């Protein structure tokens, strides 16, 4: 049996998912052989090695002697060892011989395929966990990386530095979170566009190992919406709304003091007055703001941006210049994203296909530019979904849901059921396409995360995020759009290929988990060790339950009581009081002392 056959047999048995990807990639590579950058050859000692882009990735003389290269860097007490770069595996043998649990991340499917064909990977495939490309991204969240060490295989730095840095940053954040037990308070708007983003952010932060304390201001939305019924006098109404917002702002201050987070993240339009931001910063808690709006359309950033420790934006360039002039601190670009547990590919139920399926669809609000532009598409099998459409006109007749709000769980059915999803960035000023539009809306990522094909108006900041022509298709005019619609309706396989590439790209780079990692990495780099130290929640914090138990040894009654609580978390006196309240019968001595303790520490 050849190396390839042996390797494939084992890989199929051990990692069916990777095998399927590899097989699919092989087909593509066979068609593209002329462009391969790999040059396999044999070393002086007769071992298979290779060059990539003209650079030898293993010793041309004695590659077997590389076996100790990584091992020599690994501390004795390390648990798992992650290595960036598989190559033909020679550098990993020492780790396997030593019995070290090894995870390998190979950035290039091309190199992996070459290794499968030319190297003996039997032991590696059996004993290591192998990731190829970006599929490590999802797996890294569930890991405790507190005892994990991470090394690059040096030759890879020549061609894959960018991929390495991505893995390194994920790793850094995850290691940090394993050690620090960060607590982040996230503040939602009362209503509006960034409300779904708030929910995705909370979920994503939890997934990457952060304790999330949400302040969900949407709870107050029904009352806020009722305020116009009180008066039609705009001045009075404005005053009342401001008082309402002030009340929420004060509530956020009290909530912060009650919950003592390490970081506060306010979403766009969160009801947080700048005076309260100052007070929270006065508690030595950093406050970040994610402005997920178009700075040219919504201008309140001028008033609020300088108040924050960190200001994240979905636009760069001119916006950064303006923010710098205002004296805003620590500004960073953080585009929107998708939430893979919501935005995902699936087969729409048979009985729902009639409702959701179409050749062309659009999901979004009826802004002026869209109402006009879509008049040019009415001859297609075109369904529109969303709110604020003029149902009386010709475009309005295509609106399927009569302007009723739709939840994400429903509109992903549209993305999955549609052959071509249209995306047109909104504008209240223009008709049609904003030719100098820069930022990218969340729909770009949401549709792609459903492995659905998308045609989006060209945007200045799109191409670093998604590669036009390969991962997404764009248009600059109605005529170009119509051309591409006709083409892709007639070419299913091409359409699916672009959708697949876009899907992989979003999962690798544009999930909310990835965004939160990026955000935290930025903040961690600025805050240094002080982040997470404010309330001292490190795993060696004396108030972690297991640490209290260790110190309480000898007081069996106290130890028994403490065993009611999560040993890995700090002891919450609130939870202790709840536990005591739930009990029946006479209070024990331990419970009584905790009642006293709660009083004195609360009063301090």
């Amino acid at each position, binding site marked *: 049996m050849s190396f390839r056959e042996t390797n494939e047999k084992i890989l199929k048995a051990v990692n069916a998912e990777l095998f399927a990807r590899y097989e699919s990639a092989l087909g593509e590579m066979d068609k593209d052989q002329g462009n391969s950058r790999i040059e396999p050859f044999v070393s002086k000692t007769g071992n298979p090695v290779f060059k990539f882009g003209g650079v030898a990735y293993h010793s041309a003389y004695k590659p077997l002697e590389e076996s100790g290269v990584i091992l020599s860097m690994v501390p004795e007490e390390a648990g798992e060892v992650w290595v960036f770069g598989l190559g033909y595996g020679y550098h990993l043998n020492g780790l396997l011989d030593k019995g070290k649990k090894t995870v390998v991340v190979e950035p290039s499917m091309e190199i992996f395929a070459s290794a499968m064909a030319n190297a003996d990977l039997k032991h590696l495939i059996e004993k290591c966990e192998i990731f190829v490309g970006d599929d490590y991204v999802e797996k890294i969240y569930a890991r405790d990386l507190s005892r994990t060490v991470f090394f690059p295989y040096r030759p890879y730095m020549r061609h894959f530095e960018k991929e390495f840095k991505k893995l390194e940053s994920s790793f850094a954040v995850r290691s940090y979170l394993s050690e620090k037990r960060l607590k982040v308070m996230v503040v939602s708007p009362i209503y509006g566009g960034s409300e779904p983003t708030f929910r995705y952010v909370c979920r994503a932060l939890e997934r990457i190992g952060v304790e999330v304390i949400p302040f969900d201001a949407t709870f107050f939305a029904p009352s806020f919406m009722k305020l116009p019924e009180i008066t039609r006098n705009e001045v009075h109404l404005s005053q009342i709304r401001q008082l309402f917002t002030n009340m929420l702002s004060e509530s956020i201050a009290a909530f912060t003091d009650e919950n003592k987070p390490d970081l506060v993240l306010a979403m766009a339009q969160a009801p947080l007055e700048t005076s309260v931001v100052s007070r929270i910063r006065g508690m*030595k808690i950093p406050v970040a703001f994610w402005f997920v709006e178009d700075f040219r359309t919504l201008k309140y950033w001028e008033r609020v941006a300088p108040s924050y420790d960190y200001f994240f934006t979905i636009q760069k360039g001119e916006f950064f210049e303006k923010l710098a002039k205002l004296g805003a601190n620590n500004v960073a670009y953080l585009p929107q994203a998708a939430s893979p547990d919501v935005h995902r590919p699936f087969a729409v139920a048979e009985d729902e296909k009639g409702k959701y399926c179409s050749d062309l669809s659009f999901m979004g609000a009826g802004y002026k530019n869209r109402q006009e532009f879509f008049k040019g598409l009415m001859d297609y099998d075109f369904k529109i979904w969303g709110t604020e459409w003029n149902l009386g006109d010709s475009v309005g007749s295509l609106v399927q849901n009569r302007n009723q709000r739709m939840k994400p769980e429903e509109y992903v059915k549209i993305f999955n059921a549609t052959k071509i999803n249209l995306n047109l960035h909104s504008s209240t000023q223009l008709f049609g396409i904003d030719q100098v539009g820069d930022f990218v809306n969340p729909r770009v990522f949401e549709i792609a995360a459903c492995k659905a094909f998308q045609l989006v108006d060209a945007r200045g900041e799109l191409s670093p995020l998604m590669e036009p022509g390969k991962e997404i298709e764009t248009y600059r005019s109605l005529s170009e759009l119509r051309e591409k619609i006709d083409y892709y309706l007639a070419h299913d396989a091409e359409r699916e290929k672009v959708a697949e590439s876009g899907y992989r790209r979003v999962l690798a780079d544009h999930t909310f988990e990835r965004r939160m990692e990026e955000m935290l990495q930025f903040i961690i780099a600025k805050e240094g060790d002080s982040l997470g130290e*404010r*309330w*001292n929640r490190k795993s060696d*914090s*004396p*108030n972690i339950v297991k640490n*209290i138990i260790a*110190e*309480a040894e000898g*007081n069996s009654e*106290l130890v028994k009581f403490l065993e009611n609580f999560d040993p890995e978390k700090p*002891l919450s*006196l609130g939870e202790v009081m709840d536990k*005591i*309240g739930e009990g029946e*019968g*006479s*209070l024990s*001595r331990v*419970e*009584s*002392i*905790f*009642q*006293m*303790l709660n*009083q*004195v*520490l609360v009063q*301090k």
Partner: protein
Amino acid sequence: MKKILVLNHTRMGDLIQTTPLLAGLKKKYPGCEITLLGNVKFADVCEHTPNIDKLKILDVQQFIPQDGNETRIIDVYRYLDTLVDELKAPGFDILVNLSHSRFSAALSRLLDIPEVHGFYSSDEGYRIINDPWLVYFAAFLAFRKYNSFNLVDLYQLGGGVVPSGKKVLLEEKGDGKSIAPLLEKLGISEGDRVIGIQAGASLKDRRWPPEKFAKAADLVASERGAKVLLFGATSEKELGGQISSMMKEKNINVVGETTLAELIGLVRRCELLITNDTGTMHIAAATGTKIVGLFLVHAFAPETGPYSEGNIILQPDMECFPCYHNTTCPHYACLEKITPEEVAQASRMIEELQDRPDLNIDAATFPEKVVVASHFDEANFIWFRPLKKCEPQSHNILALMYRYFFISQAVGGLKDNYWLEKLNKNYLAWTPEKAEEWTGKVQERFRKLANAASRGLKLISDTEAHLKKGKIEKVKEKGEEIVAVDREIDILGHAHAELRPLTRLFELGKENLVDKDIGIMLAKTKVLYKGILLGTAGMIRIIGVWGDNSRKNNSMETAKGSL
């Protein structure tokens, strides 16, 4: 030898206010040993408090890192665990817990001392008050204008001691001459007249504005030819500096500069202290220094006024005064009511009051102010006597009636006209017509309350009968009816403020019922209904006396007006 433990670890003023109780305990139990559990913040006050044989200091502060790091819970737990053992060891006979905190209630339970006066925790963790006067103490904030009992008297009664009419106490350590070097350093000679100003307060909201203090100090100092000492805590240094710079008269700013011993000595040296409701005020009461007190916002003279004879308190005469505690006022208009000139006038009256303890002033003076003077009455309870002779409001009359009723129940030995004499001497009489109308209306309200309580009592008897026969369903039925009657009682108390003392005491009495045995619960509830009946009967009778008296005395000074 009786061993007594007293818990009072809240504020400095509270400690000083406990001193008559401690003296009373020493008298009641000759040879007893008193241990006080006090707060570390006021450890130095404890050192100057007489009649304490042993002092135990509660110091949780030591576990709170100053650098903002987290407090180690295990350390605090161990400290409290050890504290409990240390307090159990002596085998106390009596516990007097004047702190109404959950902390002290929980501690009281753990100590398991045979005789408890005050707050403690039941086995299930409910806070119980084990003395009717401390129940009253917990209740009176719900009916402040109807209460005339001072905290110091309530502490004594709660501790099982009858008030003796003696002021609060502080010991000065050493031979009393230790203050001499400090006085010299401050440039105060033997013949100098000195007044003191305490402009700060533990609650910032209760402060009279600094510029008014400065002006008042100038006026009084100038009139008396006195030097001015500015007192205050370290946190009030900025305030002290402000007042000092605003004053025209020479002043000596010792804000944040004195030890407690020095403060006591300096306050004693003053002939007058002008102050908000503060700990320094209580020090002045203990040293015998006369006080002009400004009670604003939440502070109310009858409750926490200085416990010594002959002080004058100025309060705003406003519908919203005094404020509820823990509220934030949108305007604090009361802070602007009292003028520096009025403070100067009150300072002059202090001297007059010493010569004429029954001094009254014209109703037109001190417009929109209530002016009262502290005085130990014939029952040896302190009373804040109104100096302005004007028409009483309904609550003034009822406060005196309730005072008489409650003292009679607890202590006895009062003259029947104890309350009436106070009314007649210090207020203008109403017209007979007005008095009659008021009498009828108020008596009717008390009758309504009595009616509800009677029904409650009947329901209890019925329930007991059903319980004896094992008719559980009937017991449940009656239980629901009892709940309805109790709700009616509560509503009456809220609808008619004059009933609130009785209904609030009833409500707190019910909260104290934590017995699992239904029979015992019913018996105790019966006592509570009887309490209302006793109270309503007593008040109806007293109000009737007022009505009769008003009809008889239509030749006396009267004031016109309506209810």
